[in-house]
């Protein structure tokens, strides 16, 4: 099964405006796929449709050939789908470590009643925190972290759910260059470990270096798809960005 995620004819309207228009994309397993397009092309709306934050007017979403359109968010997570947000969302009053524990997949009733955290879960959380350089902050409330640290925590926390596919919504937004480097290395090493990524980004440098293939959206539809070189040379893509 090479295709991990697929959308078919997804359409979503807000009042008179069509945000996503008969959009069909697919994401290959094991890839770091980029999703770009000019402002208002529907990238975040597409994410919201895939994760069922918005209800689609028509069309479907498939994960591993299983229809997941309209599936409840917590079940999507169990299917192996996770996402981050453009504006970082964390549990601000919980500690860093607690933020890591909430996403752990609950198995069976007993795990709910578990006091504190199971040994191996705590180990996994701490090792992930170490990987992003946050283990020394584990007992601080999340709101005390700096902007960059918050983004890292959001990323690390969703990894606790052991996702197969991670949707990243502008991971490099407002982040300094050395942090961007760090994020790219992290994404690559996680990808080597088997995680597939779909990345929405405006930072072209990052996208061209990190992602292959790249999907291009304009006005809610896919207008191009291919390797970074192919996309950069594609006149339709240039038109979409420069035209109108």
């Amino acid at each position: 099964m090479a295709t991990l995620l697929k959308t078919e004819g997804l359409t979503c309207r807000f009042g008179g405006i069509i945000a996503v228009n008969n959009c069909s994309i697919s994401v290959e397993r094991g890839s770091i796929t980029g999703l770009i397009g000019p402002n208002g092309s529907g990238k975040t709306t597409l994410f919201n449709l895939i994760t069922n934050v918005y209800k689609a007017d028509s069309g479907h979403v498939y994960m591993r050939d299983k229809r997941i359109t309209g599936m409840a968010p917590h079940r999507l997570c169990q299917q192996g789908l996770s996402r981050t947000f453009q504006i970082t969302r964390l549990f601000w009053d919980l500690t860093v470590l607690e933020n890591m524990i909430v996403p752990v997949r609950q198995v069976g009733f007993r795990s709910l009643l578990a006091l504190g955290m199971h040994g191996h879960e705590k180990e996994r959380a701490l090792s992930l925190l170490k990987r992003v350089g946050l283990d020394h902050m584990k007992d601080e409330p999340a709101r005390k972290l700096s902007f960059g640290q918050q983004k890292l925590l959001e990323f690390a926390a969703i990894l606790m759910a052991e996702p197969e596919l991670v949707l990243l919504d502008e991971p490099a937004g407002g982040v300094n260059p050395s942090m961007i480097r760090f994020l790219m290395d992290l994404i690559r090493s996680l990808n080597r470990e088997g995680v597939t990524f779909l990345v929405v980004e405006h930072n072209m440098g990052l996208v061209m270096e990190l992602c292959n293939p790249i999907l291009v959206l304009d006005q809610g539809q896919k207008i191009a798809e291919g390797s970074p070189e192919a996309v950069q040379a594609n006149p339709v893509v240039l038109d979409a960005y420069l035209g109108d």
Partner: protein
Amino acid sequence: MHLPSLNVLTQVVVIGLLTGGVYALMAAGLTLIFGVMRVINIAHGAFLVLSAYIAYWLFNSFGLDPFLSVIVSVPLLFVIGYVFQSQLLAKLRNEPGLVVLLTFSIALTLEGVMGVIWQSTGRSIRTWYTSQVWPVTLGDITLRLPVVRVVGFFAAIIALVLLYLLISRSDLGRAIRATVQNKDAAQLVGVNVARVQAVTFGIGLATVAGGGAIFSLIWTFNAGSHEEWISKMLAVIVLGGMGSLPGAFVAALLMGMAESTAAVMMSSYISPIVFYLILFLTLIFRPQGLMGTIIRKG
């Protein structure tokens, strides 16, 4: 449960309609406040009763007819509402979840104060026209309509039309509508949102002053009555769609008719359950009411 005759049924429906008009005036302020500030003002019922007490006091001390007492009570309640929003509710701007509780605590305080001043005796205003009935004949059907209810209905309609004109034609009304649509955008084009909110709260309470004057002529009340009346008003605005004035109007008429029909067909003890059930079911199954907007959600 028994089916009444056509005459009785028509009588009951018409009375329900007339009553509904008064409900609409009472609830208009509540839905307006929600539309502009997203606040459910649970104290609205207490302010209704307060207005009724003011009318009562003016009537007993000066012989002032309740319909005229609005000269005093409407501006008074406007000021109270303005101060209330700008000095108290605005302080909780960062904790929206607690605002409802604050309005609730104000309702309790008001109930307590009114109870201390006027005790628990049921009050009502009886003027020279209170027991007069207006007979109306439509073909075979003879209706006997209490004058207070008819006059009250038309007074309510006049007040609602004035309110509607204010909202739709004036500059203030435009500012209010802009704030309802998008608070931040309104601020960006120069609307003083804080002032609009305070004024709206004032208008909201001013309308309930009008409602209270009519209310004092038709119903008996004491300090504890606010609980029953806020529930009715909440049911009306939820059914109509919170924030929608036309919705509140339609819902009020419907509720008035449903309530009086139910009172005739079942015992009048249980007829309030009509309101509570409608409130409950609407919240669950159609939270946007009849005319509110649908929030898109997965």
